[in-house]
């Protein structure tokens, strides 16, 4: 598997941009950071739309290095802008086929149109489309240009809540259905949790850290874990599609979790999100709790978050190789239970949300 390697330097408004990262040229890499931190600039530089000093390689192709700058139109990227930016003079089909190779008549057109639910829009002009429909057309248009890398610049941020809810499932399906690597810029952690496999964390023009999503989420030294909405994303398999009482059983490594049932078959891969605030700790397996998920775990590390709270990073005993989960507990409980790093505990998981 190849790598996406980027390193750019230049001025960006008030501060200097000096960003370098590597990411696998597979799956979805989230480019995350507060507004104005330089994410979009980096993305545009990778597309060749901005010309900054630096280097850019995707797999075995070099798009930029010292003395070499491949112009934007010779880079096999698909770019989805924040606003759909459809061509007003073309129909939906005309927009979709704009960047498609001339010989294009393969099954992929039908596939992509199906994937994005565009079939009944094909003959229409672009004026009458809803915001969500427009952005789907823009995504389809980018995909049909046969990119080697799909770049998405906050594709949901210009949409209303309803349109976001409409597009997110398309993006998830896209991420799972194609082998196309994706760089996804956003300042919304929820989108990262649902889509990304890998994360590049940016702040004030610099890359703070980058790595697999779960590692980054559970790294107590990074701001993510300290955030009020801190959570980890785990990949799970459906162990039993119907575990009775409207629940289904999921396996994360050897650990088992129960979650509200969704339409899925045994063996299907699912992403689940466990928020730090939804995990409490007990010294023994409680027999008289309403919480159904209680997992044996050990405290790997802990840090004080503020006057009242502690954050603990836990390793699941039944899934030693898998990712960590986070638990947010009060400092008083921590002291009264005599918790410390290395202690064996039971993680009580109050809520598990499925990410599709």
């Amino acid at each position: 598997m190849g790598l996406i390697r980027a390193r750019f330097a230049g001025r960006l408004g008030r501060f200097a941009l000096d960003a370098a990262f590597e990411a696998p040229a597979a799956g979805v890499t989230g480019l995350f950071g507060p507004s104005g931190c330089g994410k979009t600039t980096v993305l545009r530089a990778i597309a060749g739309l901005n010309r900054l000093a630096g280097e850019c390689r995707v797999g075995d192709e070099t798009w930029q290095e010292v003395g070499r700058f491949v112009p934007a139109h010779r880079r096999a990227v698909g770019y989805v802008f924040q606003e759909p930016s459809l061509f007003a003079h073309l129909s939906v089909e005309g927009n979709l086929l704009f960047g498609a190779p001339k010989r294009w008549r393969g099954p992929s057109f039908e596939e992509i149109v199906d994937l994005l639910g565009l079939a009944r829009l094909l003959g229409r002009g672009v004026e009458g489309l809803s915001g969500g429909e427009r952005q789907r057309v823009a995504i389809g248009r980018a995909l049909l240009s046969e990119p080697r890398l799909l770049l998405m610049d906050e594709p949901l941020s210009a949409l209303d809540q309803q349109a976001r809810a409409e597009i997110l499932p398309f993006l998830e399906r896209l991420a799972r259905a194609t082998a196309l690597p994706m760089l996804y810029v956003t300042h919304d952690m929820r989108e990262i949790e649902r889509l990304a496999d890998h994360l590049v964390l940016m702040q004030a023009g610099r890359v703070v850290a980058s790595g697999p999503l779960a590692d980054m989420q559970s790294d107590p030294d990074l701001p993510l874990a300290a955030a009020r909405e801190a959570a980890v994303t785990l990949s799970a398999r459906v162990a039993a599609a119907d575990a009775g009482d409207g629940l289904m059983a999921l396996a994360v490594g050897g650990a088992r979790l129960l979650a509200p049932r969704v339409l899925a078959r045994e063996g299907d891969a699912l992403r689940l999100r466990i928020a730090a605030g939804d995990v409490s700790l007990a010294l023994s397996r409680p027999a008289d709790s309403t919480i159904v998920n209680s997992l044996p775990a050990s405290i790997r590390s802990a840090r004080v978050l503020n006057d009242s709270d502690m954050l603990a990073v836990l390793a699941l005993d039944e899934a030693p190789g898998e990712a960590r989960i986070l638990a947010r507990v009060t400092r008083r409980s921590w002291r009264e239970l005599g918790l410390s790093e290395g202690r064996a505990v039971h993680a009580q998981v109050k809520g598990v949300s499925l990410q599709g």
Partner: protein
Amino acid sequence: MQGLSPDVWIAVRLTLELALLTTALLLLLGTPLAWWLARSRVRWKEGVAAVVAMPLVLPPTVLGFYLLIALGPDGPGGAIAGLWGARTLAFSFAGLVIGSIVYSLPFVVQPIRNAFEAMGERPLEVAATLRASPAQAFWRVALPLARPGLITGAVLGFAHTVGEFGVVLMIGGAVPGKTKVLSVAIYDYVETSRWREAGLLSAGMVVFSFVVILATILLGRRAARAGS
């Protein structure tokens, strides 16, 4: 319109030919110029824009006088005319076309430039990420999107050429069928007190101008609606 002499119709035909050819050449010339003015980042481009806009404020007689010299044996026009053994480009249809192009240039360039500027950078960036070369982006995106501006420019250029008088008068020599266009014919009728013909042709020009301006306004509104 019985009773109008045949030279009126010769003048009408000549005027239309001149306006059509001028408009076609203006689009060919003005579009790349407008593109450059809209896109270039060089500082002196506004200087070029000012030169292009000069015919808007210069009296036609000034323009006509410079053209007369430029087209004549002492100017570049004479050198060009020398290629086919003539001494001057004045008094020729070609000379009129050149004069009309200079005179009507701002009316064509300005709306097209505005259209190019109004579309912004984004459509071209999108085109680039869809593997369109700059030339392809121009033909497949910029030009179609600038269509309202191109139409407005063409209509105004055509109308302005039809109504052109001062410049034509000064470089034309009123050669029937070659340089004696409608406005010159009207002038002749006024000059010779043939009020009836002058009145009829003038009324025709008034109606024509009204239709053209109305059409431009309506086109502009339709484009604005389509763009919103």
